[in-house]
């Protein structure tokens, strides 16, 4: 079980006074493009410097090294990036079940990344993140370029992962219906500032 608490996280373009994601819960974020949603997720993941504190369970981020924190709180970027020629090289503990959940057999591990479509890469990026066994996921529009069935696959896998590991997730989504499906609460972001919780 893992929960995430954000306190006074601040950097230019990011201002999140307080945000809490409970054990196995998912909270959604939304806002116009350029409002700083990705910046907030990056700041939480400690990819960008920010003042304030983030807690994973009852441990403060400052008690982790940068890499140790990011291994627990994994940021999944809107556009996935791959640094090696083949899929397999990007993780050591690929889970067959996760690959299957996003629509692939294990043979995909031997495929060349270059030959994958952007949608395929996006789905694999989620399986890749899960292969590192995170405690929390920061999902930046994980189904932005996917069709209906594949969007459902992503949603189902995150739901399954939360239920089985107790991990929690922050999910950026433009789609109000999707937010209602995947998250228990939803918050707006305007000009970098996290607003009050949306009415259900």
């Amino acid at each position: 079980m893992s929960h995430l608490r954000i306190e006074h996280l601040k950097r230019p373009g990011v201002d999140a006074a307080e945000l809490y994601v409970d054990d196995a819960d998912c909270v959604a974020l939304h806002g116009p493009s350029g409002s700083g949603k990705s910046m907030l997720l990056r700041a939480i993941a400690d990819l960008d410097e920010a003042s304030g504190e983030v807690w994973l369970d009852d441990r403060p981020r400052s008690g982790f090294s940068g890499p140790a924190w990011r291994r627990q709180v994994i940021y999944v970027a809107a556009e996935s990036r791959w640094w090696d020629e083949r899929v397999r090289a990007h993780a050591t503990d690929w889970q067959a079940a996760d690959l299957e959940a996003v629509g692939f057999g294990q043979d995909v591990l031997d495929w060349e990344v270059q030959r994958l479509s952007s949608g395929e890469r996006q789905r694999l990026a989620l399986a890749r993140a899960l292969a590192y066994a995170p405690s929390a996921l920061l999902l930046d529009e994980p189904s932005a370029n996917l069709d209906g069935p594949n969007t459902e696959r992503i949603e189902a896998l995150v739901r399954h992962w939360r239920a089985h590991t107790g991990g929690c997730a922050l999910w950026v989504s433009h789609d109000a219906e999707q937010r209602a499906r995947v998250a228990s609460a939803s918050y707006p972001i305007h000009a970098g500032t996290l607003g009050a919780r949306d009415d259900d």
Partner: protein
Amino acid sequence: MTTDKLIILSSADLALAAGLVLLLAAVSWRLRLGVGKGMLIAAVRSTVQLLLLGLVLKALFSNSNPWLVAALATVMLAVAGYEVMARQKYRLRGPWGYGTGTLSMFLSSFSITVLALFTMLQPTPWYDPQYLIPLLGMLLGNTMTGVAVSLDNLTRQTLDKRHEIEARLALGYPATDAISDIRRDALRAGLIPIVNSMTTAGIVSLPGMMTGQILAGSPPMEAAKYQLLILFLIAAGTGLGSVVAVMLGSHRLFDSRSRLRRDHLTG
């Protein structure tokens, strides 16, 4: 060293050779190649610099003052450091921009020169400028190229592949893992010139120093041995310098929490 076979060049000999450069500049101007002006400026620079060096060395050789030798070595290093910085498209901000290249050249060129003077050439005194200055010059000149190419490659590729680097950081990889392949590529690029010149030495190209010694009347085998010594020293110096530069540079591209710091680079 035998000097009896040394043919002394007259000003007229040099003027004739310079005339060829003038001719080339004229051809460039006629064909609108746009390199004539740069060519003339470079030719004038090399004339002034080399004649000045000749004068300085003449003065140095006559009294062998260690402080003067140290001063000249410092000037050579300072200029090489500036050259390395000027050859980079994206530089590290602040003192790191000048310091990274200069420090790595200092560590490699100076230590290799001192090592060679103490263990191989063993002149008396060990700082005898007749040996120290040419040796240091050869080492600095070549190390400079290696360091400049390595650093330029490192910063360019880091900017180019910053999203791939951050993809690894986001999965919890430490900075050294996230930049390892870029670091390797940058080092390789810096070492290719010296590997190439060792490979083709004596077959495709007659190395400049050996040519000079032969023209100055040295026996060919002695010239070959000196050239080999210099090639090995250059290879070691370039390798050491490039390794230090790439390590320092890639260290500076991240902060204490292993974040990629784009803002530590210019451009």
